[in-house]
């Protein structure tokens, strides 16, 4: 009988009721008395010098409150980059100023060139059309290879080139690596693109700045995954405000997938303008604006080489990647192609030599930063594609080739700096073969062929590193922030509990799952526990939600704080029962004295803490509230094996996903229902990347897929029901819950499985196609078949 509460149960989500009845409280649902509206005039050219801006006519338009240009922000700081990468020669990354509003130069389509605040949004738009510019167009730098050419136009005149950094990781000894390739029995090489994506959470970004003259306090409502981080960056680096005078609130947030981690210009603008205008200033992004102002994801071009010995053992791996940074460095942009990507290049395999080379490049495009998976999907895609190609070249079974090279002993220190604490890749592959019904594939292929379709089977293994930290290590690697998280457990006098957590929920279900843990530890009903999140005014501190870290890092902080609560409560209980606190046991919300029939209830202890009449006041403070900060000892390493089956229509090149199976090892699981949902969502996005999504620029730096009319989002009929299994569980060895994180796995593990399946289908039809770059649109598949 599965339990209906606590760790391992799947209670229904409590947050659903408000979302299902239209009672959610998203940022755009909030209106502040007297608010004005800002319309951002955005560049429609990719690269130009701003000679002059004339706002005089616009300023006279009806309803206009104030117009801002780059000059108004010349005195405040630029948007900071949160990670400084050191290049292969020991030099720091090139780091340009990232202004709130473009000052002298426009560097990408969508960059803010002026901001009009008016009584109504339409008035602001009307006035924006009356702003006059004198621009001198400059050549747009779009293609990464061209951007790195000697004579390339520079995106930033004050930098030495368009190279942000040239980085090497793993084995830096070129000769040693080359020797491994020279002595290989077989080398497989693949050049590929990891397509540029737009995160497109369904809720566009919104920011409302407000300022109180009475208290000199600012309030920013914003669609953020990490309000405390936004407050810190905005206060310390951009606006120079004292942190205690700024409150950042991220209420219900309609999805993020990474794109709402970063500190954006619009947030700083609305906060700044609220004081300057003397009234609240609200901005609601349109979807059209989102496409040209939300940070994009991926956009890597890679050459990968895999060396094998005569027994098909992997002996060396070398990659050369160009990664697009866009025009400016978004908050975590530089960490993605470096430490979030290079460290994962060993994958699930015991390849002894790995060398990763990455050049990051400035272009006249929207900044690129973390998107669901962030670096790990790029690593997995290269590795799993080249392994599949190697298997095909060698005539080896792709599953057997992977199995043969699996890491099987833990802890395992990889050649790219990580120590995998635990895992069982054989078990997940065994499980996958069963879930995916590998044995039945031949019959399914025959059936497809009868219908004139080509059927393919593709496999993929992944490992990811989640719960990023420990802080001292990432600090050495260039992180400019700590990566712990915090939780405060506040027990009320009547025994109910509020847990203030640093993690932010925007779809992950923390409001349901976090209380499962606390209630389980104490043995009380989950309804007695609520979490509070998303408000720097109510939550002491926190680092937010990204990198599948919420339960592994913030959840661990919550456990530590709850342990402190229990320890103190035991002392109170011991006092009440006149026993030693070492003898007190807590079970099902009852404190008992071991070996006796004495007991006192949770509620009585809580009440005693706040009404301390019979209380050891000389030894113990009254009250029951504890905070813990948790800094992990290592990453966590979710891993798994995925399989995809596709049908390809040979007449049109259209690919349909017929089956998708996932066997994941997430360690211990708090709520299986939520975990399934996280995997489903990741698979949807990964399949979207593989088949549909493409943020494409033309040579002038215009985004061609700048709306849902041209950027293909996965729809319900693009995907099947997924087969998801997470019964393989090797608990994380270094956090108190033994959890690993599950938010990104689906998006990391699925694209290579889809592409491998399509290649398999085409090969089965006699087409000698070894690679197609994503997205595998009908047109691209048809072109490859007929190329």
């Amino acid at each position, binding site marked *: 009988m599965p339990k209906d509460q606590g760790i391992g149960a799947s209670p229904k989500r409590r947050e659903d009721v408000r979302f299902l009845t239209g009672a959610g409280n998203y940022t755009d649902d909030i209106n502040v008395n007297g608010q004005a509206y800002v319309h951002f005039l955005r560049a429609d050219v990719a690269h130009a010098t701003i000679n002059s801006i004339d706002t005089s006519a616009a300023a006279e338009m009806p309803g206009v409150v104030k117009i801002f240009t780059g000059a108004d922000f010349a005195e405040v700081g630029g948007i900071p980059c949160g990670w400084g990468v050191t290049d292969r020669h020991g030099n720091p990354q090139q780091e340009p100023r990232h202004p709130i509003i473009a000052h002298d130069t426009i560097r990408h389509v969508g960059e803010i060139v002026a901001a009009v605040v008016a009584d109504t949004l339409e008035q602001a738009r009307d006035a924006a059309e009356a702003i006059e510019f004198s621009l001198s167009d400059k050549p747009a730098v779009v293609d990464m290879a061209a951007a790195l050419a000697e004579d390339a136009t520079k995106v930033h005149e004050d930098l030495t080139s368009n190279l942000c950094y040239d980085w090497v990781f793993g084995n830096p000894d070129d000769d040693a690596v080359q020797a491994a390739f020279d002595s290989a029995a077989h080398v497989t090489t693949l050049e590929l693109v990891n397509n540029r994506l737009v995160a497109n959470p369904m809720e566009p970004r919104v920011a409302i700045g407000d300022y109180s003259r009475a208290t000199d306090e600012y309030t920013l409502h914003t669609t953020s995954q990490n309000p405390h981080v936004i407050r810190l960056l905005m206060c310390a680096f951009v606006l120079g405000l004292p942190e205690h005078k700024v409150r950042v609130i991220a209420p219900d947030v309609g999805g993020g997938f990474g794109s709402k981690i970063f500190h954006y210009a619009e947030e700083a603008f609305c906060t700044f303008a609220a004081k300057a205008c003397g009234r609240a200033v609200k901005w609601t992004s349109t979807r059209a604006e989102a496409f040209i102002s939300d940070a994009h994801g991926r956009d890597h071009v890679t050459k990968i080489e895999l060396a094998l010995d005569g027994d098909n053992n992997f002996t060396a791996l070398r990659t050369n990647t160009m990664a697009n940074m866009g025009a400016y460095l978004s908050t975590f942009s530089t960490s993605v192609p470096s430490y979030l990507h290079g460290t994962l290049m060993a994958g699930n395999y015991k390849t002894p030599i790995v060398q990763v080379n990455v050049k990051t490049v400035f272009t006249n495009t929207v900044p690129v930063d973390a998107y669901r998976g962030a670096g790990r999907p790029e690593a997995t895609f290269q590795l799993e594609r080249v392994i599949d190609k190697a298997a095909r070249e060698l005539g080896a079974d792709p599953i057997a080739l992977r199995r043969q090279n699996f890491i099987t002993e833990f802890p395992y220190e990889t050649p790219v700096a990580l120590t995998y604490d635990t895992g069982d890749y054989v078990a997940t592959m065994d499980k996958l073969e069963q879930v995916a019904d590998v044995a039945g594939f031949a019959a399914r292929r025959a059936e497809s062929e009868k219908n004139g379709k080509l059927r393919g089977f593709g496999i993929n293994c992944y490992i990811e590193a989640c719960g990023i930290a420990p802080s001292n290590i990432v600090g050495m690697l260039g992180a400019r922030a700590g990566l712990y998280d915090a939780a405060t457990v506040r027990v009320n006098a009547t025994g109910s509990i509020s847990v203030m957590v640093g993690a932010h929920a925007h779809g992950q279900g923390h409001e349901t799952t976090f209380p499962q843990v606390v209630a389980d530890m104490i043995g009380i009903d989950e309804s007695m526990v609520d979490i509070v999140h998303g408000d720097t005014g109510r939550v002491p501190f926190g680092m937010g939600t990204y990198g599948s870290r919420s339960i592994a890092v913030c959840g661990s902080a919550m456990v530590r704080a709850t342990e402190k609560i229990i320890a103190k409560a035991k002392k109170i209980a011991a006092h009440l029962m006149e026993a030693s606190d070492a003898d007190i046991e807590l079970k099902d919300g009852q404190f008992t004295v071991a070996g006796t029939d004495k007991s006192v209830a949770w509620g009585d202890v809580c009440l005693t803490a706040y009404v301390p009449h019979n209380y050891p006041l000389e030894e113990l403070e009254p009250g029951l509230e504890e905070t813990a900060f948790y800094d992990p000892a290592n990453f966590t390493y979710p891993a798994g094996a995925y399989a995809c089956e596709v049908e390809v229509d040979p007449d049109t090149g259209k690919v349909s996903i017929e089956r998708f199976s996932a066997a994941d090892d997430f360690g211990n699981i708090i709520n299986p229902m939520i975990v399934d949902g996280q995997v489903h969502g990741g698979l949807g996005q990964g399949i979207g990347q593989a088949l549909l999504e493409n943020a494409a620029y033309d040579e002038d730096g215009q985004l061609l897929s700048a709306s849902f009319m041209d950027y293909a989002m996965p729809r319900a009929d693009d995907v099947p029901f997924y087969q998801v299994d997470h019964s393989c569980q090797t608990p994380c060895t270094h956090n108190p819950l033994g959890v690993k994180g599950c938010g990104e796995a689906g998006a990391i593990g699925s694209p290579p499985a889809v592409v491998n399946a399509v290649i398999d289908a085409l090969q089965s039809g006699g087409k000698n196609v070894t690679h197609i770059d994503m997205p595998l*649109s009908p047109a691209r598949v048809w*072109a490859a078949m007929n190329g």
Partner: protein
Amino acid sequence: MYEFEFEKPSTVAEAVAALADEDAQALGGGQTLIPTLKQRLAMPSKLVSLTAIPQLKELSDNGGMLTIGGAVTHAEVAEAAAASYPALADLAGHIGDPAVRNRGTIGGSLANNDPAACYPAAALGSGATIVTNTREIPSDEYFQGLFDTALNEGEIITAVRFPVPEKANYQKFLQPASRFALVGVFVAKYAAGVRVAVTGASEEGVFRWREAEAALDASFAPDALDGLSVDAGGMIGDLHGSKEYRAHLVGVMAKRAVAAAG
């Protein structure tokens, strides 16, 4: 959106009068026009809604001639024509999505003449007659290129008359993002001959594939189209498919339409 006046007349005459104002524009279901206005790509002084004019909501089946009022929605056509002209009903039932079909109208679609829209293929493929407040326009004369039609300023599509064919079918290959037709082919067999209309593919908008019509006149079977192809030169090439791909799809979709028409 820029500011505009809004009028909702109840007769065609009132609508025509309202549209006489400078920069006044007719509003059908608004499923294309409203998104266009949101981007401030149009600046009408006035929108004249055609959705409350009873005459434009009429739909009649007159022994082989289906007449559909200009303001009849896609969803209504999908339901009302299911028995009399199933290929047309099927086409209407797959335009956009259900919510779009509940608002979008046949008159609006034909007046807009988006090069990737479905209705132009049905009208041209059926040899339909576009009936306006002033005249009747044969479909062969109506479509004049991308977003261009024979309609004059202020002229309203009051109805579209579709002769019902012996057999017909529409095959649409979806543009993956917009779900408009990347290529759509409408094939209809009449006693007088076969008509084949292609949407989504050409830089000139919807067109008749005459070679295919001739081949199908001789033999109404998919393999009658073997060896025939449209010139890739005039096709649209973009992010979603090259000119060559679209030209290829025209052939594939035409064959499938013939096969499905039976």
